[in-house]
């Protein structure tokens, strides 16, 4: 794998929309071609080279390309958006839509990410060392296709509306979360190691939410059905099992009704 390093030399005055910072776009390009990639600052057409110094060289394909971003990227949107392979490492925080519609590869943000990250993610691995904002692994506004597959791991806390319309894959939050988790989900799994606020699994048709801490207020549409011992992310524990959201439609599979499942550690 070959590494291309982008180092912030000029901070954008507004926010930078840089959908080109992906192994797919950069693979096989020369530093001069990379510097000429279009980015938006507000409504202005700018180039990547105006904001970043480019060193090293990408591989021939996305899978052989590693991108390292240095400097403060907290005002850069769309890093790793739609990437299908390779690796992106951000040595700072990143703004919105980081890893959105990601199809594969590995994306590692060493700081925080803002909202709408990992949106509609189709596959791959997305690691956030800091905190995540709202709508992590959710669907785009209005859409019903949230995260499909892959893994998102947040080492800090996450905001609200995590995994809305999630259909598959796994989101692990090592800290706490705010309201509206797995809303409308039809698959997938969300693990919360800290505490949850309220509205956990509202309108959930299918899927799992596993909570290690406490929930401030339970949804009224969940029914306790028993206890289960689970091994989750390397930890074994006994959980109280609930099914729901009983206010929502639930399909039948092999004669059995499919429910969303909520596990809260005893």
């Amino acid at each position: 794998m070959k590494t291309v390093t982008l180092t912030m030399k000029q901070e954008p005055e507004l926010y930078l929309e840089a959908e080109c910072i992906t192994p797919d776009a950069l693979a096989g390009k020369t530093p001069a071609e990379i510097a000429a990639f279009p980015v938006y600052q507000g409504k202005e057409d700018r180039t990547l080279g105006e904001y970043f110094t480019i060193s090293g060289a990408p591989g021939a394909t996305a899978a052989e390309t590693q991108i390292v971003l240095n400097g403060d990227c907290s005002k850069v949107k769309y890093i790793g958006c739609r990437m299908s392979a390779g690796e992106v490492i951000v040595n700072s925080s990143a703004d919105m839509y980081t890893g959105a519609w990601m199809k594969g590869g590995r994306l590692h943000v060493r700081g925080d990410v803002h909202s709408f990250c990992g949106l509609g993610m189709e596959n791959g691995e997305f690691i956030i060392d800091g905190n995540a904002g709202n709508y992590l692994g959710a669907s785009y506004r209005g859409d019903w296709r949230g995260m499909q597959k892959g893994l998102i791991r947040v080492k800090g806390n996450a905001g609200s509306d995590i995994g809305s319309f999630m259909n598959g894959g796994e989101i692990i939050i090592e800290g706490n979360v705010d309201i509206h988790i797995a809303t409308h989900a039809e698959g997938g799994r969300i693990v919360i190691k800290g505490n949850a606020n309220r509205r956990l699994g509202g309108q959930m048709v299918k899927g799992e939410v596993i909570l290690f801490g406490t929930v401030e207020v339970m949804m009224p549409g969940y029914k306790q059905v028993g206890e289960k011992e689970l091994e989750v992310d390397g930890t074994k524990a006994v959980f109280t099992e609930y099914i729901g959201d009983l206010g929502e439609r639930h399909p039948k599979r092999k004669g059995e009704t499919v429910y969303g499942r909520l596990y809260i550690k005893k």
Partner: protein
Amino acid sequence: MSEYLIRNGHVFDPMQSIKGDVKDIAIKDGKIVETSALSSSAKEIDAKGKTVMAGAFEVHAHIAGPKVNLGRWYRPEDKLGHSYKKSKATRIEGGFSVPSVFKTGYEYARMGYTFALEAAMPPLYARHVHEEIHDTPIIDEGALPVFGNNWFMLEYLKNREIENNAAYVAWTLRQTKGFGIKIVNPGGTEAWAWGLNCLLITDPVPYFDITPAEIITGLIETNEYLGLPHSVHIHGNNLGNPGNYEVTLASLKLAEGYKPKNNFGRKQVMHATHLQFHSYGGDSWGTFESKAKEIIDYVNRQKNITIDLGCVTLDETTTMTADGPFEHHLGTLNHLKWANVDVELETGSGIVPYIYSPNISVCAIQWAVGLELGLLAKDPMRTFITTDHPNAGPFTRYPRVIKWLMSAKARNERLNSFKNADKIIAATNISGIDREITLYELSAMTRAGPATALGLSGICGGLKPGMVADIAIYNINPDSPPSDPEQYEKAFANVACLFKEGRMVVKEGEVIDHGNKRTYWVDAKVKENKQVTHDVREKFLKYYSVNEANYQVPDSYAPHPYVIAVDATK
């Protein structure tokens, strides 16, 4: 104004029976003229090896108004990845199945269209429809107010008061600047307000106690009493369900015995729209099959009916119709999202996103049904190409539908690559059809035919001297037709040149001018009718949420009108 001489193009014009002859077409002052009428300053356009036709007509699309806009609001994801700015002359375009007004105008123009009919205008929200029509560049437009579930109409027709109903329709056309009479799920949308539907033409409407059959015949009589340019335009009962072709046949038969009465050269008394959605056999989704042949055999014999296809394009789209109960039904089938609107005394509507997947048998059968109707129809002057935009697919897919109609190869490639191809072939007639629509037939289906059905054949839809100079030139050489059907799709998506009222608005697929769009509406004069004046006043006082004086669409909402006057006082 500029003069142009389009030289040596292969001209197709069914209005003059010109079938691809090499001819020159002259333009002066926005009209088509004899070539001898041009001065020496006329600009020459070389159309050698190209196809020249009149501007195309859209007879049925949902492109302006509250229902379309609700689709835009609640589908932000429809704009994701579909927003761009193409040239200096154009504004930002956005949306795929529910495009912005600008994109709507530009895309029609890029395909060579110069007229589009908004298929369902709720009278109460006519102002909104006209605001959007005004903002849609280039193309001329008209809008059909919906009458099939209107309380006035239900009461007048229950009592067989055709003259009163005609006076009410004339009043509404003037208030809303409407073009003609649209009927959507007659009686069914009103029944939906009671939680019911009318699935048969004999199902009575709750409270009003009138049947869909009585509504349809009553409105046909009303339309011919007034002598409107267009006929009644019907979206029948029980749309979209297996086995609905029997209801469709029963509805079409209601036109038997009626003769067109008008001064506009219109020959039909009924336009049956998006017939694809109404031509299904089977008694469940599992036994779903095509009954296109049964339907079109009847239409072929019945000369006073025109149809449009409503072809499924196999895209992700947004269904929207005044057929409220159908949208609710669809929402319970696909579990995506559902919006519903009730329009007081007049109509209702619903919206649901829908994915026509080539991997789902029902969708693939629907795809075949639409094309079968077009290919088995004997009279291209009565058969028009639509996708019921955006219901069966976006109108921007017309070039693709044309490709499927013009090329058996393209059709068979698509058919054989369906996931359940064997099942689709067994449930449809498409694989046995080798007909390929010719350019001449296409010009009838998209120009002369619809213009005649809309009562506009005296002014546009052809290339006769004296007609409005709406002219499309395509990069297709009829002497050496493309062997690769994809070339048809490409050529019909990007006109070589489009003239709108004598102004060049598109060149090689790029919009260069915003044109001079006009709004067509029909002003029907009827005898003074005190009963109807009284009824209108009473209903506004009793039921409407707006004052009668605030109902009318002011002239400022349609600043570039083309008013067609009709006198029904004699």
